[in-house]
Protein backbone atom coordinates (compact mmCIF):
# COMPACT_ATOMS: atom_id res chain seq x y z
CA UNK A 1 0.00 0.00 0.00
CA UNK A 2 1.31 3.42 -0.98
CA UNK A 3 0.03 6.19 1.29
CA UNK A 4 0.85 9.82 0.66
CA UNK A 5 0.30 12.22 3.56
CA UNK A 6 0.31 15.75 2.21
CA UNK A 7 0.66 18.49 4.80
CA UNK A 8 2.12 17.96 8.28
CA UNK A 9 0.44 20.73 10.21
CA UNK A 10 -2.19 20.51 12.91
CA UNK A 11 -4.27 17.84 11.16
CA UNK A 12 -1.43 15.84 9.58
CA UNK A 13 0.54 15.87 12.80
CA UNK A 14 -2.46 14.59 14.75
CA UNK A 15 -3.30 11.91 12.20
CA UNK A 16 0.16 10.41 11.68
CA UNK A 17 0.85 8.69 15.03
CA UNK A 18 -2.44 6.78 15.03
CA UNK A 19 -2.22 5.99 11.32
CA UNK A 20 1.35 4.75 11.71
CA UNK A 21 0.51 2.57 14.71
CA UNK A 22 -2.47 1.10 12.85
CA UNK A 23 -0.33 0.32 9.81
CA UNK A 24 2.67 -0.94 11.78
CA UNK A 25 0.73 -3.60 13.65
CA UNK A 26 -1.84 -4.49 11.01
CA UNK A 27 -0.19 -4.42 7.60
CA UNK A 28 2.96 -5.47 5.81
CA UNK A 29 4.61 -3.75 2.87
CA UNK A 30 3.32 -0.25 3.57
CA UNK A 31 5.12 2.92 2.53
CA UNK A 32 4.06 6.30 3.85
CA UNK A 33 5.41 9.32 2.02
CA UNK A 34 5.36 12.56 4.01
CA UNK A 35 5.03 15.57 1.73
CA UNK A 36 5.48 19.05 3.18
CA UNK A 37 7.83 21.85 2.21
CA UNK A 38 7.41 23.62 5.52
CA UNK A 39 9.72 23.76 8.49
CA UNK A 40 8.96 23.39 12.18
CA UNK A 41 9.38 26.67 14.00
CA UNK A 42 8.82 27.49 17.66
CA UNK A 43 5.37 28.96 17.10
CA UNK A 44 4.14 25.54 15.89
CA UNK A 45 4.48 24.03 19.37
CA UNK A 46 0.97 25.09 20.43
CA UNK A 47 -0.50 22.51 18.00
CA UNK A 48 2.29 20.19 16.89
CA UNK A 49 4.82 17.75 18.40
CA UNK A 50 8.42 17.78 17.18
CA UNK A 51 11.88 17.19 18.60
CA UNK A 52 13.89 19.64 16.52
CA UNK A 53 13.38 22.66 14.33
CA UNK A 54 13.71 22.10 10.60
CA UNK A 55 12.04 20.23 7.74
CA UNK A 56 8.61 18.93 8.83
CA UNK A 57 8.79 15.97 6.45
CA UNK A 58 12.29 14.94 7.52
CA UNK A 59 11.90 15.42 11.26
CA UNK A 60 8.49 13.75 11.39
CA UNK A 61 9.74 10.76 9.39
CA UNK A 62 12.75 10.37 11.72
CA UNK A 63 10.47 10.35 14.74
CA UNK A 64 7.92 7.91 13.31
CA UNK A 65 10.44 5.35 12.02
CA UNK A 66 11.77 4.88 15.54
CA UNK A 67 8.35 3.96 16.91
CA UNK A 68 6.98 2.10 13.88
CA UNK A 69 9.84 0.25 12.17
CA UNK A 70 7.62 -2.00 10.03
CA UNK A 71 6.38 1.01 8.07
CA UNK A 72 8.66 2.60 5.49
CA UNK A 73 8.56 6.38 5.87
CA UNK A 74 9.79 8.47 2.97
CA UNK A 75 10.17 12.20 3.55
CA UNK A 76 9.55 14.58 0.67
CA UNK A 77 10.41 18.09 1.88
CA UNK A 78 8.48 19.92 -0.83
CA UNK A 79 5.11 21.54 -1.33
CA UNK A 80 2.91 19.96 -3.99
CA UNK A 81 2.99 22.06 -7.14
CA UNK A 82 2.14 21.62 -10.79
CA UNK A 83 5.82 20.82 -11.35
CA UNK A 84 6.09 17.86 -8.97
CA UNK A 85 2.59 16.45 -8.53
CA UNK A 86 2.96 14.00 -11.42
CA UNK A 87 5.89 12.31 -9.70
CA UNK A 88 4.51 12.52 -6.15
CA UNK A 89 0.85 11.48 -6.59
CA UNK A 90 0.59 8.37 -8.75
CA UNK A 91 -1.66 5.56 -9.87
CA UNK A 92 -2.94 3.45 -7.00
CA UNK A 93 -2.01 5.90 -4.27
CA UNK A 94 -4.10 6.55 -1.19
CA UNK A 95 -3.70 10.24 -0.42
CA UNK A 96 -4.41 11.74 2.99
CA UNK A 97 -4.61 15.43 2.20
CA UNK A 98 -4.10 17.61 5.28
CA UNK A 99 -3.21 20.93 3.69
CA UNK A 100 -4.27 24.41 4.73
CA UNK A 101 -5.37 25.89 1.43
CA UNK A 102 -7.93 25.26 -1.28
CA UNK A 103 -5.44 25.91 -4.08
CA UNK A 104 -3.59 22.68 -3.25
CA UNK A 105 -6.90 20.79 -2.85
CA UNK A 106 -7.85 21.93 -6.35
CA UNK A 107 -4.44 20.90 -7.71
CA UNK A 108 -4.74 17.41 -6.20
CA UNK A 109 -8.38 17.00 -7.24
CA UNK A 110 -7.67 17.93 -10.86
CA UNK A 111 -4.57 15.76 -11.05
CA UNK A 112 -6.34 12.75 -9.59
CA UNK A 113 -9.15 13.09 -12.14
CA UNK A 114 -6.49 12.23 -14.71
CA UNK A 115 -5.56 9.02 -12.87
CA UNK A 116 -7.46 5.76 -13.27
CA UNK A 117 -7.26 4.50 -9.69
CA UNK A 118 -6.67 6.70 -6.69
CA UNK A 119 -8.24 7.57 -3.35
CA UNK A 120 -8.06 11.02 -1.77
CA UNK A 121 -9.26 11.70 1.77
CA UNK A 122 -9.06 15.43 2.38
CA UNK A 123 -9.60 17.18 5.70
CA UNK A 124 -9.77 20.85 6.56
CA UNK A 125 -11.04 22.98 9.39
CA UNK A 126 -12.05 26.44 10.39
CA UNK A 127 -11.90 27.43 14.05
CA UNK A 128 -14.48 25.10 15.64
CA UNK A 129 -15.75 23.06 12.70
CA UNK A 130 -14.41 21.23 9.71
CA UNK A 131 -15.03 18.69 7.01
CA UNK A 132 -13.60 15.61 5.35
CA UNK A 133 -14.11 14.72 1.68
CA UNK A 134 -13.41 11.34 0.07
CA UNK A 135 -12.71 11.22 -3.66
CA UNK A 136 -12.42 7.76 -5.19
CA UNK A 137 -11.44 7.02 -8.79
CA UNK A 138 -11.74 3.43 -9.94
CA UNK A 139 -10.99 2.16 -13.45
CA UNK A 140 -11.05 5.69 -14.77
CA UNK A 141 -14.45 6.59 -13.29
CA UNK A 142 -15.39 8.83 -10.38
CA UNK A 143 -16.97 6.70 -7.68
CA UNK A 144 -17.45 9.75 -5.48
CA UNK A 145 -17.27 13.44 -6.28
CA UNK A 146 -13.92 15.14 -6.85
CA UNK A 147 -12.88 17.60 -4.16
CA UNK A 148 -13.42 20.41 -6.67
CA UNK A 149 -17.12 20.05 -7.47
CA UNK A 150 -20.04 22.42 -7.94
CA UNK A 151 -21.10 22.07 -4.32
CA UNK A 152 -17.72 23.49 -3.35
CA UNK A 153 -16.95 26.54 -5.48
CA UNK A 154 -14.36 27.57 -2.90
CA UNK A 155 -12.26 24.64 -4.14
CA UNK A 156 -13.30 24.84 -7.81
CA UNK A 157 -12.18 28.47 -7.90
CA UNK A 158 -9.80 28.91 -4.96
CA UNK A 159 -9.15 32.41 -3.74
CA UNK A 160 -6.09 31.45 -1.71
CA UNK A 161 -2.61 30.42 -2.81
CA UNK A 162 -0.46 27.33 -2.90
CA UNK A 163 2.44 27.73 -0.44
CA UNK A 164 4.69 26.17 -3.06
CA UNK A 165 4.26 29.28 -5.13
CA UNK A 166 6.96 31.82 -4.32
CA UNK A 167 5.96 34.27 -1.60
CA UNK A 168 2.95 32.35 -0.29
CA UNK A 169 4.61 30.27 2.43
CA UNK A 170 3.67 32.55 5.30
CA UNK A 171 -0.06 32.53 4.53
CA UNK A 172 -0.41 29.22 6.33
CA UNK A 173 -0.06 30.70 9.81
CA UNK A 174 -2.12 33.81 9.21
CA UNK A 175 -5.29 32.67 11.04
CA UNK A 176 -5.59 31.11 14.49
CA UNK A 177 -6.54 27.46 14.71
CA UNK A 178 -7.87 25.31 17.52
CA UNK A 179 -5.88 22.18 18.31
CA UNK A 180 -9.08 20.41 19.33
CA UNK A 181 -10.61 20.99 15.89
CA UNK A 182 -7.43 19.73 14.19
CA UNK A 183 -7.73 16.55 16.25
CA UNK A 184 -11.42 16.11 15.46
CA UNK A 185 -10.79 16.38 11.73
CA UNK A 186 -7.80 14.03 11.91
CA UNK A 187 -9.92 11.47 13.78
CA UNK A 188 -12.67 11.80 11.18
CA UNK A 189 -10.15 11.28 8.36
CA UNK A 190 -9.02 8.08 10.05
CA UNK A 191 -12.66 6.98 10.40
CA UNK A 192 -13.13 7.50 6.66
CA UNK A 193 -9.85 5.71 5.91
CA UNK A 194 -10.99 2.72 7.96
CA UNK A 195 -14.44 2.73 6.37
CA UNK A 196 -12.80 2.73 2.95
CA UNK A 197 -10.59 -0.24 3.86
CA UNK A 198 -13.68 -2.08 5.08
CA UNK A 199 -15.63 -1.23 1.93
CA UNK A 200 -18.29 0.39 4.11
CA UNK A 201 -19.07 3.90 3.10
CA UNK A 202 -21.75 5.65 1.10
CA UNK A 203 -20.82 9.28 1.48
CA UNK A 204 -18.77 11.96 -0.24
CA UNK A 205 -18.09 14.15 2.75
CA UNK A 206 -18.42 14.42 6.51
CA UNK A 207 -18.97 17.59 8.53
CA UNK A 208 -17.71 17.98 12.07
CA UNK A 209 -18.61 20.57 14.72
CA UNK A 210 -16.61 20.38 17.94
CA UNK A 211 -18.87 22.76 19.88
CA UNK A 212 -22.10 20.84 19.29
CA UNK A 213 -20.24 17.49 19.05
CA UNK A 214 -22.23 16.76 15.91
CA UNK A 215 -20.91 14.82 12.93
CA UNK A 216 -22.86 14.36 9.71
CA UNK A 217 -21.98 12.26 6.66
CA UNK A 218 -23.41 13.43 3.33
CA UNK A 219 -23.78 11.54 0.08
CA UNK A 220 -23.90 13.83 -2.94
CA UNK A 221 -22.98 11.25 -5.60
CA UNK A 222 -25.80 9.85 -7.71
CA UNK A 223 -24.80 6.26 -7.01
CA UNK A 224 -23.82 4.98 -3.56
CA UNK A 225 -20.14 4.09 -3.42
CA UNK A 226 -18.72 0.65 -2.74
CA UNK A 227 -15.07 0.23 -1.90
CA UNK A 228 -13.13 -2.43 -3.71
Amino acid at each position, binding site marked *: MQIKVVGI*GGIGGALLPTLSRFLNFGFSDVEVTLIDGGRYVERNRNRQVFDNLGSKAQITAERLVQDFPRVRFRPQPAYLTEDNIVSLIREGDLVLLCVDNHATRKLVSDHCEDLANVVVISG*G*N*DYTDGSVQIFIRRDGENVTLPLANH*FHPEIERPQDANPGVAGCDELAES*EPQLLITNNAVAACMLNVFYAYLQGRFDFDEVYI*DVVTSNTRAVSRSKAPAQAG
Partner: protein
Amino acid sequence: MAQGIIKVTCGANSQEFGDLEGKKVGKVRRDLAQAFNIPKDAKALVQGEQVEDNYVLRKGNHLEFVKAAGTKG
Protein backbone atom coordinates in the same frame (compact mmCIF):
# COMPACT_ATOMS: atom_id res chain seq x y z
CA MET B 1 -39.89 12.54 8.28
CA ALA B 2 -43.29 13.25 9.83
CA GLN B 3 -45.92 15.19 7.85
CA GLY B 4 -45.46 18.94 8.07
CA ILE B 5 -41.93 18.66 9.37
CA ILE B 6 -39.15 20.44 7.51
CA LYS B 7 -35.56 19.47 8.19
CA VAL B 8 -32.84 22.12 8.05
CA THR B 9 -29.15 21.28 7.99
CA CYS B 10 -25.91 23.18 7.69
CA GLY B 11 -22.57 21.48 8.13
CA ALA B 12 -22.72 18.99 10.98
CA ASN B 13 -25.85 20.49 12.50
CA SER B 14 -29.40 19.48 11.72
CA GLN B 15 -32.83 20.11 13.21
CA GLU B 16 -36.47 19.43 12.33
CA PHE B 17 -39.04 22.23 12.43
CA GLY B 18 -42.82 22.12 12.39
CA ASP B 19 -43.46 25.76 11.51
CA LEU B 20 -41.49 26.47 8.33
CA GLU B 21 -44.03 25.37 5.71
CA GLY B 22 -44.79 28.28 3.35
CA LYS B 23 -41.73 30.25 4.36
CA LYS B 24 -39.08 31.29 1.87
CA VAL B 25 -35.58 29.88 1.98
CA GLY B 26 -34.14 33.38 2.29
CA LYS B 27 -36.10 34.02 5.48
CA VAL B 28 -34.99 30.72 6.98
CA ARG B 29 -31.42 31.58 6.04
CA ARG B 30 -31.69 34.90 7.88
CA ASP B 31 -33.59 33.56 10.90
CA LEU B 32 -31.25 30.63 11.49
CA ALA B 33 -28.02 32.29 10.40
CA GLN B 34 -26.60 32.57 13.87
CA ALA B 35 -27.92 29.35 15.40
CA PHE B 36 -26.77 27.24 12.44
CA ASN B 37 -23.72 29.35 11.56
CA ILE B 38 -25.01 29.69 7.97
CA PRO B 39 -22.67 31.60 5.65
CA LYS B 40 -24.41 34.35 3.66
CA ASP B 41 -23.27 32.88 0.37
CA ALA B 42 -24.02 29.23 1.18
CA LYS B 43 -25.86 27.40 -1.59
CA ALA B 44 -29.34 26.21 -0.61
CA LEU B 45 -30.46 22.72 -1.59
CA VAL B 46 -33.93 21.23 -1.24
CA GLN B 47 -34.02 17.46 -1.62
CA GLY B 48 -30.48 17.79 -2.99
CA GLU B 49 -31.36 20.24 -5.77
CA GLN B 50 -30.20 23.85 -5.70
CA VAL B 51 -32.92 26.44 -5.03
CA GLU B 52 -32.98 30.21 -4.81
CA ASP B 53 -33.86 32.23 -1.73
CA ASN B 54 -37.42 32.83 -3.02
CA TYR B 55 -38.20 29.09 -3.00
CA VAL B 56 -41.22 28.41 -0.77
CA LEU B 57 -40.77 25.46 1.55
CA ARG B 58 -43.25 22.59 1.51
CA LYS B 59 -44.07 19.74 3.86
CA GLY B 60 -41.37 17.11 4.04
CA ASN B 61 -38.68 19.29 2.49
CA HIS B 62 -35.09 18.83 3.55
CA LEU B 63 -33.34 22.19 3.27
CA GLU B 64 -29.57 22.12 3.35
CA PHE B 65 -27.30 25.14 3.37
CA VAL B 66 -24.04 23.79 1.95
CA LYS B 67 -21.15 24.69 4.17
CA ALA B 68 -17.81 25.33 2.53
CA ALA B 69 -15.06 22.79 3.03
CA GLY B 70 -12.77 23.52 5.95
CA THR B 71 -9.89 25.67 4.85
CA LYS B 72 -7.07 25.26 7.31
CA GLY B 73 -5.02 22.29 8.44
